[in-house]
């Protein structure tokens, strides 16, 4: 049950703080999203720049890059995902604890980018794992990554703890493990996870 905003402000003036468990819980979650420390290509340089003093990702509570997937809340797919690397990325995602989020950063991570028609580059990481925020750009500027963080924070803030749109760690039936693609003779097998990615309809 959400609290009426005007009533909240009125009570605040009287020195009374009113909140809901949901608000408090989501505030805590969104204010300390710890990313996993790994970079895949040139986008990783922009990701590193984002954490430095000029752009200062610490303002959003995400300065602690964890070197272990077990301690990370979010994965930034920062760069080209080659077909040889894709199983490792999915495996790392599987090793993360819920609640976990994914930002696909840059043209390569969202679609294969300039390498889309190549033989060795995955046409977007969303073929294997669910992606929360896609950022275009080649590479995206640090501001774009910060925009992605803020979008993700808004998304977390908007999640209710019960009901259909509850976060996955509160959903007993949510899929926990995502199948890791195998190295095939000509391509990865399967070429995409049908449960995660369906071919978008192209409207002409």
């Amino acid at each position, binding site marked *: 049950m959400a609290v009426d905003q005007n009533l909240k402000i009125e009570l605040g003036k009287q020195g009374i703080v009113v909140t809901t468990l949901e608000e408090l819980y989501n505030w805590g979650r969104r204010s300390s999203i710890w990313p996993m420390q790994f970079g895949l290509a040139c986008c990783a340089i922009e990701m590193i720049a984002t954490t430095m003093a000029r752009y200062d990702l610490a303002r959003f509570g995400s300065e602690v890059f964890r070197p272990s997937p077990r301690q990370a809340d979010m994965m930034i797919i920062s760069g080209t995902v080659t*077909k*040889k690397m894709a199983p490792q990325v999915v495996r790392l995602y599987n090793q993360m604890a819920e609640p976990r989020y994914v930002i696909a950063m840059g043209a390569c991570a969202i679609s294969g980018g300039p390498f889309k*028609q190549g*033989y*060795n580059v995955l*046409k977007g990481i969303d073929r294997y794992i669910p992606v929360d925020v896609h950022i275009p750009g080649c590479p995206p500027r640090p501001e774009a990554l910060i925009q992605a963080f803020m979008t993700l924070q808004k998304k977390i803030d908007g999640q209710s703890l019960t009901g259909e749109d509850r976060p996955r760690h509160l959903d007993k039936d949510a899929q926990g493990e995502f199948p890791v693609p195998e*190295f*095939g*003779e*000509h*391509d990865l097998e399967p*070429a995409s996870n049908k449960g995660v990615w369906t*071919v*978008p309809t*192209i409207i002409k």
Partner: protein
Amino acid sequence: MKTVEEIRAAILAAVPGAAVTVLPNASPSAQQSLLIGAEHATAIAKFLRDDEELALDFLSNVTGVDWLDKEIAEKVKVTRQVAKPVEGGEPGQVQMMDETVEETRKHVEPGYLEVVYHLFSVAKKHGPVVLRMRTANRTDKAELPSLTPVWRSAEFQEREVFDLFGIVFKGHPDLRRILMWDEFKDFPMRRDYVEPDDFEYEPTPHDEVLKRAQAHRAHVGAAEAKP
């Protein structure tokens, strides 16, 4: 530095029986290359490295080239006998006459895989000397001697050429795929490589991609219509 012709003469003097051809380069760079036979390749490489005047101690680059089978059409004049009706004669009466016809004959020149080495000398500050080697064909005899025992820097680059072109380097200490995974069966830089049919989602297709996307859609549509 010696010219390619001089280098060729030096090789022939040092390695008797070696097959060395100068391949001219008509471009402005005029970077002539030496085509060497696979048989004496290691001896030639050792000579180029150890010769005091050349001292090509640095191998900077190894790459591959795929040359497809070439179909060559030739016009040949052929004379043959033709039966022709006799002028002013009875119908059905024929006469044998010679006739010269131009005929197009086609023959296939077999393709090959080529590996190119760029050599420099750090000691003498000269280069490059371009070496080439060719395989017998593109299928079952794609073998060449490895130059890794002569220049250590060839190791990873020869592995890359093996990975992408499928040239097997005899005498290479560790010939495995380097970029693609071990289970991969194709050679992606060969010109007859067929990519997996993953053109299901092409939002902005054009040219070749448009064709592949349309072919994919037709293929998938037919498969869906069957059951």
